[in-house]
């Protein structure tokens, strides 16, 4: 995902001299091409994320298009008030790109895990939240972010790390809503976002899960959620079970967002939630093992998928 971001960024920067990349001493080698082409448009702001975010907001107000890149806890949690005041309250089209969504930095421990970023960003009015499912989707999401920034709309893109596979799309409902399994909603539906989508698709590969559908949503603002809600309402009679799989804490993610819309619309649809437990993780282990131990286990997904 990191490389896909760097490639798309470099392409956009070629056509827009206003684009400027700010990084918090992160991104070894991935921006080599960008730096080679635009040495004056890369600023390593150092390990000083609060300043970096506000500097970016100041730049945006002066007509530049700043892209801010670093590891999620430092970009989002550390600088939350800077995002709130200087990007939110002051309405600046800054693109925040965080790396290490969920447990991507598995063995680096809880300080580097990102369980709460989506919940926090959902509280900022006008903030668009993108959780691309794979490298190809990163490009799609980043282009949208860049275009939104031109209208002073800020966005946050949650990347995983590196090495994620591209996922086969069965059907695209819109640029941010895609069928990853089956081309229509079936009675047993999974909804997912971000790079965990590949784990969901993998878990349901076997033929015995042929009656299951998987939809991904890679943008979590109200418009996209309403689109998804309408899709659910249209198929309400058919739906027997809906589950959301997301690599976040139980609080403040897609599950809460979608459930509250459904409640407001009086749609009688309960949604299962497969997510990380609401606790910090101290085990030193690989991402897949941590996911399975702390809530996102393939077998749970498979068990739910077999329910008629």
């Amino acid at each position: 995902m990191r490389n896909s971001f760097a490639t798309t960024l470099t392409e956009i920067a070629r056509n827009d001299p206003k684009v400027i990349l700010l990084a918090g001493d992160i991104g070894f080698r991935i921006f080599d091409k960008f730096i080679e082409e635009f040495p004056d448009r890369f600023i390593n702001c150092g390990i000083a994320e609060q300043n970096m975010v506000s500097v970016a907001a100041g730049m945006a107000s002066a007509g530049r298009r700043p892209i801010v890149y670093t590891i999620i806890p430092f970009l989002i949690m550390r600088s939350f008030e800077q995002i709130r005041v200087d990007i939110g309250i002051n309405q600046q089209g800054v693109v925040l790109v965080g790396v290490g969504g969920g447990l991507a930095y598995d063995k680096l421990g809880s300080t580097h895990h990102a369980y709460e970023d989506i919940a926090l960003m959902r509280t900022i009015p006008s903030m668009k939240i993108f959780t691309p499912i794979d490298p190809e989707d990163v490009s799609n999401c980043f282009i949208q972010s860049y275009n939104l920034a031109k209208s002073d709309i800020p966005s946050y893109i949650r990347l995983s790390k590196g090495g994620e596979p591209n996922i086969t799309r069965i059907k695209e409902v819109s640029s941010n809503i895609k069928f990853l399994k089956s081309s229509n909603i079936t009675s047993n539906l999974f909804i997912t976002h971000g790079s965990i989508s590949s784990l969901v698709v993998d878990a349901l590969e076997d033929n015995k899960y042929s009656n299951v559908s998987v939809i991904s949503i890679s943008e979590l603002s109200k418009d996209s959620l309403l689109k998804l809600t309408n899709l659910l309402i249209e198929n309400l009679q058919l739906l027997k079970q809906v589950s959301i799989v997301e690599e976040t804490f139980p609080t403040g993610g897609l599950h809460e967002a979608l459930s509250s819309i459904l409640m407001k619309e009086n749609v009688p649809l309960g949604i299962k939630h497969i997510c990380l437990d609401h606790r910090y993780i101290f085990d030193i282990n690989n991402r897949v093992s941590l996911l399975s131990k702390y809530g996102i286990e393939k077998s749970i997904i498979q068990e739910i998928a077999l329910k008629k």
Partner: protein
Amino acid sequence: MLNLDYFLQKTKRFSYLSRIDIVNTIYKAKGGHVGGSLSVIDILSSVYALKEKYDFEFVLSKGHCLLAWLVTLIRIGELDKSILESFYLDNSSFGGHPKKGSSSSITWSTGSLGHGLSITLGKAFASPNKNFICVLGDGETNEGSVWEALMFMSQHKLTNVLVIIDNNKQESLTFTDDILSIENLNDRLKGFGLKALRIDGHDHEQILDNLLSYFTDRDVDNVPKVIIADTIKGKGISFMEKVPKWHHRKLTPEEHTLAIEELTNCKV
């Protein structure tokens, strides 16, 4: 040739009128950040007295002293004095902190401390030919983000930003020295690779001199400058000067009469 005497008289007149406006408005609004507004007003008067001659963008990082900024904008005719009638009242255009767009000079919403300098640096980086002035409080330097910003300013040699620290040596509850002292601030700034200039923040001539050298020779040594303006919180009103409770407070009718009397006695 710049007629310094003209600007000096203008500045002094601004300060005299603005102090009275500040006290009257806080009396009417039944509260406000009076101490800091009175410490920073001579700086604001000097900055805006030069507005007719030099162009700049101004960021008030210590946003709680908005009232001092508003009365200064009234002095230069950007705002009408009638805005003070409704200051801080329900449905007013002006509350306790600067709101972006509420006047043409107010380009950023501040109020949370430790943001303004970083913002100014971002703007200055993007607009190298423009002048920027950012005013911070000494208490504001408690915030770590201020030091991040000072490092960034030094690293990128953003000489188009002039930082002025309103060093009134007090914070909300007590004296800065008793909280997180910065009394070797000159050395700290020098250590950061910045040029620290220490002046009397109530001496209009000193402030004007330093502002003029920024406007005329800002790039001369390629080192960004920080003016430490030594000021007195509550300056101009004997019973408020250096008394912590006057950080934010309302005035009784008697205090108001006495304050206005003292200020009027200093007529220029």
